[in-house]
């Protein structure tokens, strides 16, 4: 009996050690990425980086203000195009979706979330860019929105399912019409969780390059309109990184650092939101 116990403790310690090791191994790439990007990028960050347009090849200085603004614009458009239909589709699936059609929607959403982002870029290219004969911010926004859509839909559905049935019944029992109960009680109860999911979806698409290459493309100047090609941080990083110029390499690292920073802020904000919700319960 005693022997068994010590043996069990040994196995326990071994398994625990293995888990710890695996966790460490998983964290190494993350740590390395953060380290490299920070150490290489930090030098390129100055006031000009955030406020000036890129300079032509050979000229020193300049910044990426247009790409920064462009990314915000594209992500904003993606939210505009992606969040409302995503949330509503999630509401449909969770609250009204017992039919076969709902199964189909759910299945397509799952398939879509596995589609490589470059495919979505090509899709939007054929759908919008070829027709309008121009790269544009809204084409980029649509591409990112399509990318967000399945995540937003499924997150919304999952979170609505977590809302206890008793709250729906409470609302219906008060003589509240179903649509009103769904919007004002069920959706509102799940709202912080859905917001978190949406922020994670945004963080995910903010760094996407492939779908923007043939949709928003790039632009060396300030964004002037939604129908114009628009610069973005990921595409700018790509362009600069594959260029032969050291100065551009440096800028690409700096941009990568800014992008990581943005994504990190979104992630942390999402988490804080969750914590806040838990505490207010």
């Amino acid at each position, binding site marked *: 009996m005693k022997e068994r116990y010590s043996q069990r403790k040994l196995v326990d310690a071994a398994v625990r050690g293995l888990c710890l090791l695996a966790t460490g191994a998983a964290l190494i790439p993350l740590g390395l990425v953060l380290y490299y990007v920070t150490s290489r990028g930090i030098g390129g960050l100055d006031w000009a980086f955030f406020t000036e347009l890129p300079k032509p090849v050979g000229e020193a200085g300049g910044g990426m203000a247009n790409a920064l603004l462009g990314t915000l614009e594209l992500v904003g458009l993606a939210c505009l195009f992606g969040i409302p239909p995503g949330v509503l589709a999630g509401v449909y699936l969770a609250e009204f979706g017992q039919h076969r059609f709902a199964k189909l929607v759910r299945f397509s959403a799952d398939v879509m979330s596995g589609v490589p982002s470059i495919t979505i870029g090509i899709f939007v290219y054929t759908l919008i860019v070829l027709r309008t004969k121009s790269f544009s911010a809204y084409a980029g926004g649509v591409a990112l929105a399509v990318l967000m859509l399945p995540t937003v839909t499924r997150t919304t559905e999952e979170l609505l399912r977590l809302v206890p049935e008793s709250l729906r019944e409470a*609302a*219906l*029992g*008060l*003589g509240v019409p179903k649509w009103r109960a769904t919007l004002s009680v069920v959706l*509102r109860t799940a709202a912080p969780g859905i917001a978190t999911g949406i922020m994670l979806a945004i963080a995910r698409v903010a760094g996407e390059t492939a779908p923007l290459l043939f949709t928003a493309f790039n632009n060396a100047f300030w964004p002037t309109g939604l129908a114009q090609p628009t610069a973005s941080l990921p595409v700018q990083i790509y362009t600069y990184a594959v260029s032969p110029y050291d100065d551009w390499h440096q800028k690409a690292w700096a941009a990568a650092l800014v992008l990581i920073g943005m994504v990190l802020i979104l992630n942390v904000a999402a988490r804080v939101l969750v914590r806040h919700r838990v505490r207010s319960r």
Partner: protein
Amino acid sequence: MIQSLALARTSEATRESARTPARPSAAPDRPKMRAEALRAHFGKTEVLKGITLPVESTTVTAIIGPSGCGKSTFIRCLNRMHEVVSGARVAGKVLLDLQDIYAPDVDPVRVRRRVGMVFQKPNPFPTMTIRENVLAGLKLNGLRPKDTEELVERALRQVALWDEVKDVLSRSGTSLSGGQQQRLCIARSLALEPEVLLMDEPCSALDPIATARVEELIHELRERYTIVIVTHNMQQAARVADFTAFFYLGELVEYDRTDVIFTRPSEKKTEDYITGRFG
């Protein structure tokens, strides 16, 4: 005595409902509600097998019976909440002031405004404050009451919660204790001034003190509202109810004045149940 025994018994009641109104002699003339040959299904299973039962105006009617006999289903049929569950169906009639609430032109939402419901588990809206919870029924129905403060105070006083929460009205509804939450839910229903209040085991999650409070409350509400309460607690039924109906396996076994049910039931099954021989 003879008279009061000649009452709704399951099978006869269904068949003879038209001829013998199942109403005890002490009751006012016209029942507030009346189920007629009411059948309820979950998918293919029939859980209510033809219930005919009156609910007398401004009285308390208790529904008792072993677990799974269809008590909850029955009262959910009284405000059209049964059909909310997918696959659930209802057949038969439920009259509210002589109008069939299952008639095709009746809007279930309007029925639920007139026939309020309090659930077994307190379910205040977690995103709303105590004040908002009380007003939820009105607000969500698009009504803008004029004097909300007074309305909130009146509803909370009615459920004897005002003194406990008057200083924390903007706290979350879920920050209250279970018993307080249940009284808040009752206040939320009362704020809509329903004509009938259905309560499904409202005290089963409450401690004895909170239970006593709710029972007191039922006593007071009985003056103005028609109440139907489901309970597993025989003493509670005896304490609060004017009439008691005993359900068994989806059928109404016996319905009578509460004192009759508990002292001289005419059905063997009822007697066995209330004396604790089964159930």
